[in-house]
């Protein structure tokens, strides 16, 4: 039982990090209806900036610069690339983000090379022990940070003018533009926010249970895809629920792999996608996604 609780808690804390990444997808998708496959490279960019700066300026300033840096990269992608395509087919835009991702990831992995970069976080490898269950401080921090950020965004969507503008843009870009919403600013803001969120996620993906930032870190973003989709690409709540679901599924499938050998070993990566496929079969727009009403 304690193993189960430990796996569950671990899954939830990991899931909250996936939720942060998924939230980034959702924010961009809501603002521009584009699926951002370049998210992995934003994550790597944020982590890289934090990792290279923390020794000189300390962890917290480095983290802030990292978040700002990833936000700037995100905004730059929007300004330099995505803005020029506005109006193109969304599938094409999605493929363009793949191109952007290849460029950014190649550059960053070339810089990282074969190093493993520490992020210099204050939590270290401290562990909280509750009876038989132990949970790393970093994981608790991840959960708290993700919870806070997601709450802030839920509120911002509802109550700030930026949030309203974004929801309007998501509803109908043309109408929103006619009503005086500056679509450019909305999408620029979305990209910057997604970058910042990715940088925070990068921090929690590279601290304690994992040794540090390295070239493969960005692959974690692949786990946030099913999270975003199964929650519903246009739903912030969906991102949260999807992230948690992916985290817990992955953790349990890994922890109980000896009991699941009939499916083959090493299920951890696969399980979230299986869950996603099942959910999509039942609800094609995801758990919380807006169903399209146009039916003919």
């Amino acid at each position: 039982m304690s193993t189960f609780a430990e796996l569950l808690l671990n899954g939830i804390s990991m899931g909250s990090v996936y939720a942060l990444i998924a939230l980034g997808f959702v924010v961009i998708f809501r603002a521009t209806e584009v699926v951002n496959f370049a998210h992995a490279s934003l994550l790597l960019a944020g982590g890289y900036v934090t990792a290279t700066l923390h020794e000189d300026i300390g962890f917290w300033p480095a983290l802030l610069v990292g978040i700002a840096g990833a936000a700037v990269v995100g905004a730059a992608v929007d300004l330099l690339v995505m803005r020029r395509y506005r109006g193109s087919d969304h599938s094409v835009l999605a493929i363009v983000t793949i191109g952007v991702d290849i460029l950014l990831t190649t550059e960053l992995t070339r810089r990282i090379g074969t190093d493993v970069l520490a992020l210099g976080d204050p939590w270290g490898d401290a562990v909280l022990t509750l009876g038989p269950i132990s949970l790393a401080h970093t994981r608790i921090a991840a959960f708290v940070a993700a919870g806070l950020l997601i709450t802030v965004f839920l509120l911002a969507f509802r109550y700030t003018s930026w949030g309203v503008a974004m929801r309007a843009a998501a509803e109908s870009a043309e109408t929103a533009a006619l009503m005086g919403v500056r679509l450019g600013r909305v999408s620029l803001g979305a990209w910057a926010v997604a970058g910042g969120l990715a940088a925070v996620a990068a921090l929690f993906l590279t601290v304690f249970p994992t040794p540090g930032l390295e070239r493969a870190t960005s692959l974690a973003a692949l786990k946030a895809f099913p999270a975003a989709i199964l929650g519903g690409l246009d739903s912030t709540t969906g991102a949260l629920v999807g992230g948690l679901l992916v985290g817990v599924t992955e953790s349990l499938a890994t922890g109980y792999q000896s009991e699941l050998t009939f499916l083959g070993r090493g299920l951890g990566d696969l399980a979230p996608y299986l869950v996603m496929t099942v959910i999509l079969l039942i609800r094609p727009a995801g758990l919380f996604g807006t169903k399209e009403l146009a039916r003919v």
Partner: protein
Amino acid sequence: MSTTGTTGKRGAARVAAGALAALLLLSGCSSKAKDDGDGEKGDAAAGEVKTGQGISGRTIALGALTDMTGVYATLGKSVTQAQQLYVKQLNADGGVCGHKVELTVRDHGYDPQKALSGYTELAPKVLGFSQFIGSPFVAAAKPRIDGQDKALVLPQGWSSELLGSPYIRVIGSTYDIETINAVDFLMKEKGIGKGDRIGHVYFEGDYGESALLGSKHIARQAGLTVVEQKIKPTDNDMTAQVAALKKAGVKAVVISAGPRQAASLVGVAAAGGFDVPVIGNNSAFAPQLLATQAGPALMKNYYVASPSLPIGADTPAAEKLVADYRKAYPKATLDNGVVAGWTAASAFGEALKKACKSKDLTREGVGKALLTIDALDTGFGVAQDFTDPEASSSKESVILQPDKSVTGGMKVVQEAAASTAAEAYTPTAP
């Protein structure tokens, strides 16, 4: 994305003509136009030493198919640089039989298509391959290596499935043997005994699954139970694995994965008070890790089984290599990839020298020359015996422990030795 198809046919003609010209140009500079004669050049020996494919003029061409931009980038970089250094020194000493050796490197980034292309490109040009990373790719090229090309290939992959070919020669102990030695160390030094459970965390793929053969073999013999945890190279967080192993009550853990997974596993286990010894294969450690948070835990509870002494060994040969390597590549990390690359290049170099002595520098001659080398010692504590193509060139392992203060980050805790289980073991297909 729908544009109207306004095809400019005149433009089409221009482009087609251009394409034609380009293709003609390509075929113009192709090497197949030699089909009427000079294809078999060199067979009639220049001077007295018989030469063949891979030697033109006074140059011996060797190939290296490596991975410097993919998953094995860390290994590939060290191995390649060490081999380039070896070749440079060999040439400075006068080369082989008055020939200079030239190493052509192709980086395949662990992409099968690029690996095969690299092989196809280099195979007709080189005498042999001093490096070929990725045992699935070696397996893919195997029919051609054994069938037509018959060139010596020294893979940088220690899967037992590569054994048995007279041309593909694995250097050092294979992963299964290394794992047997590792478990043997646990039993002798860490009090693991009959009836105990040991965990084995391993990568999906040639490396991990070869190692698993070894741990299962010795477990069967010694009455241990192996608790398997298969992971993927993209898994960087071992929390769930540690929880599962803890639940299973294992007394020790073997890890056949990458350095990051080892660091995570050791770190999580230590932090959670799960105080068991962990031993990894040669590839499950990188000195870069000691600078991260996992450093202290690694130095306390982690061991590595290695096919040779570490780069920081205090033999004269090792010290010379460290000095030369630092001079040639001031920024590079000194790790065991350097030793592996150096040893492989030395083996090839020695084979070339022997072949030179017997005046036969053909592919066949070099292959035969390698078969006569029974105790190659490059100064890293293990003698390599190449006389039996069915076996790896050594069954010995050195047990190392991470230590920040040593060059290369590892110190020796048990000198090179082959366990009795490893001596008696013959690899079987999974």
